[in-house]
């Protein structure tokens, strides 16, 4: 990582700590914001956050590893999550998965070569009445067909 990048990330973290405080209870909120912007929380970011919050970096890592929305490894610029739970499963989740895998030429869980998409499974998104459902970043889409899903992916920058 370049030094400038490091510094800008450090500044960012400093601002977040200013905004949310340096209590342990601010940890998840800070992690969430870094995750949202960078799509993952790097080792360096973890160390910086730990330093500000006065906890061991391992503590930060152990929290990240617990929550499925937080990652310590880089992901694609856009995260696509397809609900794999029963109601969506019954309404054609499998055909969504197949279409997306074909179209993006990856398997679920992977990131495309151009780093544009990471595709994952999600557990129930709370949209079972409009299944099958999937999310792209923090937006959700319902009553999908394979065709509709691919159209949505094509609209993503």
């Amino acid at each position: 990582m370049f030094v400038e990048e490091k510094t800008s990330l450090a500044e960012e973290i400093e601002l977040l700590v200013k905004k949310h405080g340096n209590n342990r209870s601010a940890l998840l909120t800070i992690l969430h914001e870094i995750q949202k912007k960078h799509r993952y929380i790097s080792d360096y970011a973890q160390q910086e956050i730990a330093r500000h919050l006065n906890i061991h970096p391992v503590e930060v890592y152990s929290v990240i590893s617990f929550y499925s929305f937080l990652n310590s490894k880089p992901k694609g610029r856009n995260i696509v999550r397809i609900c794999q739970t029963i109601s969506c499963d019954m309404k054609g989740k499998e055909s969504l998965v197949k279409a997306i895998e074909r179209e993006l030429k990856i398997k679920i869980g992977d990131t495309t070569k151009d780093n544009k998409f990471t595709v994952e499974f999600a557990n129930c998104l709370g949209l079972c009445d409009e299944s099958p459902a999937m999310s792209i970043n923090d937006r959700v889409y319902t009553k999908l067909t394979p065709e509709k899903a691919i159209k949505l992916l094509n609209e993503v920058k």
Partner: protein
Amino acid sequence: MNKNKNRQGKVIFSEYLRGDGIKKAISLKREEILLELKTSKLKGRGGAGFPTSTKWMLTAASISDEKYIICNADEGEPGTFKDRVLLVEYPELVMDGMVIAGYTIGAKKGIIYLRGEYEYLLKSLQDYLNEMRKDNLLGKDILGKVGFEFDIEIFLGSGAYVCGEETALIESLEGNRGEARNRPPYPVNTGYNGKPTSVNNVETLATIPHIVLKGAEWFLNVGTDNSSGSKLFSVSGDCAKPGVYELPWGTTINELLNLVEAKNTKAVQIGGASGFCIPKSQFDRKLSYEDISTGGSVIIFNESRNMLKVLKNFMEFFVEESCGQCTPCRIGNVKLLEGVEMIEKGEHTFTYLNKLKDLGKTMQVASKCGLGQSSPNSFISILENFKDEVLNYSNGGNNGRI
């Protein structure tokens, strides 16, 4: 927001004007509110069914300079989406319920723990809270009640089903892994930041303003003797009209199936992955605390569905979502899933399956939190109620019968 408000129901979806419950509450003494709640016999709507008045009384009685009221909006049970509907279409009920809770237990701060999957609701909820602040429904001296101060903040979860368990939720709020705590101590005296905390389900809170405004007697008129009031059911799966329905406790499964226009129904999963799978022969059973108690997830399966596949989906869910803290749940769910896969491949023995059912029963008592205690329910109920179908394949058709 506030679109599509043509839902019908006797309690939650009955008429309500923003702020009315708060107005009434602050004209009463705290004890009067607690008594009204006690008379109403309202029980927690998240599934566990603990009397709300008891929880509030204990929190109110704890002596502390700081107390918290937490709204558990971490609904992650497969097949549940009622909280989403309440937060989108009826935020006034949930928020007013929180303000009333704050007044009653003496808390100045409310926190909504919103599941990460619902991040798209965050903006509109925050706008809503700002409106409340403008109208003095939040803040200092609320609606002119001198000394009554309360505000609400929203905390976003990060995708962990187990955080729906109240002590895991508190751990998560404090910036830790969402691992359930040993109890006692209970949150009512040692909760968030070690302070007395009442954690309530979104639906429970949404019911409160109605009860405070219209009285316990009115509420008791709906439902059955031991299950007062109504319940929101999130209905999905094989039916023409999936969605959220408010029905009085005591409604039978058959009545619900008719309402949502389900045809050729073979089975209904009540209570999501952690609930029970009910076969057709029991569709006259009642949804109520005394018969089939539930947080409200209803998933419908018609004749075409393969129940072993359904069970496998549930067990995969639990293997993923177990927090791994205690052995019965961490190892147990993996073993149950392996059992399902054995049946799938025709490699099971009956002796082993019986052992797995026993393992399930051990998990129900030995697991540390609700997740591990309830995850064997589907395994046991599907294997018992759909034996013929599930074992059919490897036993030479029709479970070996001619």
